[in-house]
């Protein structure tokens, strides 16, 4: 990449913890606690990963509140606790739930009477997360919300890289957020891809995903700008590849050729080979189709001994937040020198030709790959570097 891009701050919140250190502790202890939803009432019995003890203040969407929490951590680390006024800064964030007015009681009132309270409407109209971030953090540069389903968080990081390479700005707040919501809970159930068990990514007996919620925010910055401000971060995003399956609305290409193109593009941008990748944080939703396609691609491209995990066993599938959270987990793995076990995995699926890591594992090496595959056929691959 012609303009090196540093990660000068990261922040995360999900079921595994309310900040990066809490999440890291859960990963290290191999602990998870999926359970039936408490945020809404339901007769369905798919376990989920809620952020416990977290509520949004009145007047904002839960998704936005999660995003602001993660942003506070990231901006503090980057030295921007006071916001970004006067900086050449932009914001690009991914989401799915926050882009829709998924408020059942509001809609019921509207259907029955032809009008309904403005409260929910105001929250929705002020809830475009990129626009809300621009206002809160006084960001005057480019601002976009990416709605690419499950790869939104990764794709938002990709947009940020494009802006930085193009010289539109020096700093981008990038990432994604999504709350647990009854509407997609019903939807994924209807699609037959939600499991009634705690999810088991890449396992022979996996039976589907568990939904989760959270937010992952990265402060991405041109290296020159970061050094000028005194940032000593040695974490970089060196490549982001993206490609489409052009195949089906809900099923991934069985040969994962779209993801392969995305990974090769990211490797090429980073100027590295497959053998330089120390480990992969996979999309690994625990659906039959995703894990088969993705697992077989890893075997094909990286060989049967490739080190990879899905962290969705700890967080659930956080939809728009997933790609961003997993980029952060990849960066964390490089920084701390270890990655957690692929929690939920017990038995190898011989059809895949690979198996994820069963134990917490020491990591040597400088590069990590994070992959995302979305409904609709978007594929994204991010490469993170820890300069030693």
């Amino acid at each position: 990449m012609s303009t090196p891009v540093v990660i000068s701050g990261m922040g995360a919140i999900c079921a595994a913890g309310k900040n990066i250190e809490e999440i890291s502790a859960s990963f290290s202890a191999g602990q998870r606690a999926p359970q039936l939803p408490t945020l809404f009432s339901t007769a369905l019995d798919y376990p989920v990963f809620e952020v416990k003890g977290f509520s949004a203040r009145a007047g904002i969407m839960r998704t936005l509140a999660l995003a602001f929490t993660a942003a506070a951590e990231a901006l503090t680390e980057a030295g921007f606790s006071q916001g970004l006024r006067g900086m050449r800064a932009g914001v690009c964030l991914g989401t799915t739930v926050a882009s829709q007015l998924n408020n059942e009681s509001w809609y019921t009132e509207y259907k029955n009477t032809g009008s309904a309270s403005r409260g929910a409407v105001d929250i929705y109209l002020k809830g475009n997360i990129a626009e809300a971030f621009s206002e809160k953090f006084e960001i005057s540069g480019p601002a976009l919300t990416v709605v690419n389903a499950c790869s939104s968080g990764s794709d938002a990081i990709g947009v940020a890289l494009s802006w930085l390479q193009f010289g539109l700005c020096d700093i981008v707040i990038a990432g994604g957020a999504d709350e647990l919501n009854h509407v997609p809970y019903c939807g994924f159930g209807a699609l037959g891809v939600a499991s009634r068990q705690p999810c088991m990514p890449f396992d022979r007996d996996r039976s589907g995903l568990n939904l989760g919620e959270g937010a992952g925010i990265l402060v991405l910055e041109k290296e020159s700008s970061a050094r000028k401000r005194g940032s000593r971060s040695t974490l970089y995003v060196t490549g982001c590849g993206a490609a489409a399956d052009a195949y089906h609305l809900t099923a991934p290409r069985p040969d994962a050729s779209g993801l392969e193109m995305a990974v090769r593009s990211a490797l090429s941008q980073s100027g590295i080979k497959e053998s330089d990748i120390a480990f992969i944080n996979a999309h690994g939703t625990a659906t039959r189709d995703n894990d088969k396609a993705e697992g077989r691609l890893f075997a094909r491209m990286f060989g049967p001994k490739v080190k990879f995990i899905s962290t969705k066993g700890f967080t659930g599938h956080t939809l728009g937040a997933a790609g961003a959270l997993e980029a952060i987990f990849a960066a964390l793995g490089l920084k701390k020198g270890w990655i957690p076990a692929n929690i939920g995995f017990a038995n190898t699926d011989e059809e895949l030709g690979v198996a994820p890591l069963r134990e917490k594992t020491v990591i040597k090496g400088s590069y990590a790959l994070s992959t995302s595959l979305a409904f609709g056929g978007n594929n994204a691959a991010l490469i993170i570097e820890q300069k030693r």
Partner: protein
Amino acid sequence: MNINGIGIICNYGRGIDAVKSALDNGQAQEILSSRVNDDILKDKIFSKDARRSDRFDRMAVLAALDALSDAGINCEVENNDIGIILATSFGPHVTTFRFLDDILTYKEADVSPILFSHSVHNAAVSYISSLAGIRGPTLTVTRFSRVFDQALILAKAWLEQKKVRFVLVGAVDELSCIMEYIVNPKASSELGEGSVFFIVSEEKCSKIYSQADSLTSCFASQTEPIQSAFSCAAAIVLKIH
């Protein structure tokens, strides 16, 4: 950055010629503020693989495929070299509310997976890429204001970085009574419905409508009235003509 092809779906019909004749008849404002007649969306492409597509998807697909054809691009040859960016202010909200209808009407386990899978913003781009065979990067973006400006700037960035040779960049919005109620006409400027797609590139194709380089600076005030993405894009088409 050159505009090599245009596709448009609006209340006056499909394609640049429909817009031209509306302009000749002094009907520019109506293009920006009227509903699209469903007859305009009839096409045999929706009879097989795209049969489940909703109105939002169909407006997107027709304008996008028309833009490709207008630019004379052969997708079988160029398929890895084309990216797609779709900008929308309100997304496929009609289907989102139809899915809410299902939740309110039926048991939770009896809601339609077809409706759910079409209620997400990126379904339209999935149809465009599948029908055209486009394998490059694809993106759907949303804001309530100036979203098409930002999409166009991003397209330029992609071309500059040689991420792709062509970008199919467009805007789609659908109107409905409920969205008009939500947005409240007093607070909004333009709420038109329709779809516009441009093919942009740095290449000298057989057709160049215009340069698209005089782009709005993205360092402008962020406090903008709500506008449909379609209205912004359609305004550019009107300017070109």
